Every structure is written in C-alpha cells, then in structure tokens.
C-alpha cells in the first residue's frame, strides 16, 4: 500500500475525485429531483406494479434459464480446448459487446414470427414469442446469460481438478463429485455469475423493446416503463430510476467480496 505525498497527491487526487463525481452526481441528481412526497403514490400505481412484476418475472426466469442451459454450457466450454469451443464461446459472449438493439433485431430474425425458428414455432405450435412475456424473458436471457456462462467457465477453469481425484479415491462417483465438490468449490463464481446475469436481465431495455415490444402488463418491464415515463411523466421516470439504481447498488454490494474488496 503506497501513501501519496506532496504534489503527487494533488495530481492523483483531483482527477480521481472528478472521476468519482462523474458517477456520484447522476445518482445525486436522481435523489435531488425525487418527488419524495409523491413517492408512495407513484410506487403504488398499476403501471409501476405491472412493470415491477414483469421485471421480476422475466429476470428471474432468465436466471433460471441461464442456470439450466448455461451451467452445462460452461462445463462443456471449460472441459477442454478446441476450435469448436472457441467459436461457441465467441458466439455466446457476443451479447456482452453487441449493442442490445442489434441483439433485439437478431432475436427477431431468429425467433420472430417470420424468423428461422420462430416461423416453425408459429406454424407448428401456434407460438409467437414477440409481444409476449416469454419474448421479454428470452431477450433478458439473451443479454444476461453470457455473464453467467463467462463467470462459471472461469470458475471451472480455475478449479483444481485434483480435488475430484481425491473425492474419487474416497468412493465418490462423477455426479456426487460434481455436486459435493465442484459446485461448492466454484460457489463464488456461481454467485457472481448469477447476480450479474440477473442484474443485466433486469436492466435490459433495448433488446426487449426491439424483440418483445413495449406493452404494459405483458412486456413493459421497469426499464421500458422508465423510458416511456421519460416522455410522458418525468417524475415517474425518476422514481423508476431510483428503483433500478437501488437494485443495482444492492447487487454490487453483494458482489463486493469478489470485485470491490481491496486485495
């Protein structure tokens, strides 16, 4: 740990403080402009309730999907090195770097009514994903799951497989080894991945709007409601911003052991 002294202190301190302000002031802005007197009333409005219910439903379903599909994927990705894995990893990680609107368009082209899979779903089962809560969930999964896969794969790669050998000599078969040794030992990665996935799914805006549409009660999640409110009821937008910011702060607080604690 170095202690800053003399002029260096100011050379470092001033820009550092400016950087903190860059992030602190917007948060402060939300708190300052908050219509506190109308907060309760706004929170109880059906529009906010619908958005919260939808956000909770779609983000939790997205997390469940991410675990159900992403855990096996992470296990496969971490189980070796091959060109196929590299290609698969790049494809899976794409939504992290892609502008979400592109993700939304891509989802439409694949799962839309006229899309590759979507047209088949429509003609065979009469299922259409766009403009449905399932569609919003799919968009949230598309955006959130890569974070889960990334974190879990990293955890699995860092995991010392010799512990599995130790468990095997103690009589544990592959399933037992995975459940009683691997999973508990990569728990920090699982937790971080799940939190990030859920938080990103919760905050998802553009892919949802593009792919699933924007209708109160079926696809208008908190961020979408916030976007709509920005153009009709700025006060409500500020309330919704506060809700989303609070959730994010809680998530980061839970993640602090992993990324925010000084090493």
């Amino acid at each position, binding site marked *: 740990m170095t202690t800053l002294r003399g002029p260096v202190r100011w050379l470092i301190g001033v820009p550092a403080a400016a950087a903190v302000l860059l992030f602190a002031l917007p948060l402060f802005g939300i708190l300052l402009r908050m219509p506190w007197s109308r907060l309760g009333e706004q929170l109880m409005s059906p529009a906010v309730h619908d958005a919260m219910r939808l956000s909770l439903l779609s983000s939790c379903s997205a997390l469940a999907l991410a675990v159900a599909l992403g855990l096996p994927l992470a296990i496969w990705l971490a189980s070796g090195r091959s060109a196929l894995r590299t290609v698969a990893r790049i494809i899976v990680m794409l939504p992290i770097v892609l502008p979400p609107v592109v993700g939304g368009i891509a989802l439409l082209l694949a799962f839309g*009514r006229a899309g590759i899979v979507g047209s088949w779903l429509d003609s065979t089962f009469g299922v259409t994903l766009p403009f449905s809560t399932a569609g919003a969930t799919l968009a949230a999964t598309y955006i959130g799951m890569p974070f889960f896969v990334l974190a879990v794969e990293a955890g699995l790669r860092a995991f010392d497989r010799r512990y599995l050998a130790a468990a095997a000599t103690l009589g544990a078969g592959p399933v037992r080894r995975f459940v009683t040794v691997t999973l508990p030992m990569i728990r920090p990665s699982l937790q971080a991945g799940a939190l990030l996935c859920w938080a990103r799914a919760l905050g998802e805006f553009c892919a949802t709007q593009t792919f699933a549409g924007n209708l109160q009660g079926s696809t208008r999640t908190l961020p979408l409601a916030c*976007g*709509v409110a920005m153009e009709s009821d700025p006060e409500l937008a500020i309330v919704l911003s506060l809700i989303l910011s609070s959730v994010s702060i809680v998530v980061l607080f839970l993640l602090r052991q992993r990324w925010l604690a000084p090493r």
Partner: protein
Amino acid sequence: MNTLPPGPGAFALLALSVLCACDAGASRRPLRVFAAASLAAPFTALEQAFEASHPGLDVQCNFAGSPQLVLQIEQGAAADVFAAADVVNMAKVQASGNAVGEPRRFARNRLAIVVAAGNPRAIQGLGDLARDGCKVALCGPEVPAGRYARQALAKAKVAVRSLSDEPNVHALVTKVRLGELDAGIVFQTDCTATGIAAVAIAAEHQVVADYPITTLTAAAAVEAAAFVDFVLSPSGQQVLAAHGFQAP
C-alpha cells in the same frame, strides 16, 4: 526502442485538439433546429436549401420523438427552433415559457395503415384491424402518431388491441416490415419515405395532424425567425409537399 509514456502534456494536447474539433467550421454560426422524427426527410432537404441562401449559418437538426424533444428543451437544451408533430407537445413548450409568441402551423399529415409485404391479411380499412388473429401495434399514446391513431380508431368505432406501444413510428414500421406485425397505424409520410405498402384510411375516419413550429426564447431571434419564415415560404412548402406533407 524505448517509447516515452504519454505525459500530462500529451493529455493537454489531446484535450485541446478535442476542443478545436468541436469548433471546426466556426466561421458559420450554428442554428439548432429541434424537429419531430417524422420530419427528418423534408427538414434535411430544408436545411440544405436554407444554408445555400444563408451562407453565414450552419443549420443543425436534432430529430427525435416530439415528447423527447420537449423534455430536452425543458431541461435547457440550446435550441433555436422547435417543430413538433402535434399541438399537444407544442403546448408543453409554450406552458414552460420556452416558446416565443404563437406557434405557426406549417404542414399537415394524414394517417395510413402500414401493412406487411403483400398485405397477407387483406386489410382494406380500419375495420379489418379488429379481426381475430390480426396482429396490430400502435405507437404509444404519448407519441403523436399513437394518439392520432387512437383518435381515428375511436372515430371508426373499432376496438383494436395494440400488441405493443412502440416508442416511435420507425420502430413500428420496422416490425411490420419484418413480418412480426400484420399492420400498424402511422403517418402517410412515413410510408412515402420508406416505400412500404400502405392502405388509406377512409376520409371520415381520418385525423389530420397539424405540425406547429416556433422560435425559442434561447434563440438568436433574427436567424431563427428567418428559418421559420423559410419553412412557411413557397419554396419551403414545395419541399414539404415533395415528401408527402399537405399545406396547413
């Protein structure tokens, strides 16, 4: 070979160059025009024509949904002229004291039903939108096109369930184009601009959208007024007509 790490001087230079870049073309004074998204095509043409006759001015157009522009103006954006897609949003700017004088109406627009390629549902008018299995979406009620569409449907006494309240006409048109929707209600000019198939709405159900324009209190008054005059002039009106707008 050793390369020196960039010192504070390099950053100062970088900062300076960024500032200069912002000032490029400083010989012309900027005139900031905030215009509704549906005006993007004609106003881009108007910008060029106006600059040709006013070499000292650099018209900068900011296109967005009318409510968004209202919000930006209320939050203190440095705008000289505001052209809205409806009187409701213009009224908000007037109410907040940002408009100079009475707004002037410079164009009118009509609604049209935009349909998917080949019109698979064989939609002929507003009444067909309520048919079972016909997937329809509108713009949100806060968006001018969305509010007008609801007024037209009310006139025609047609109950349509909108699958999604789209944030602007472009998002709506795109979804119809991709085949996700069978139909949507947008401005006639949006169909003209994109070349997408459109079905006319019967005259008795039509809602006429008035486009008001005003100079703003923050504006350089003379130049802003000159631009508004130009929009209302015969040559300005000609440009608007070429893009499917009707005279006020």
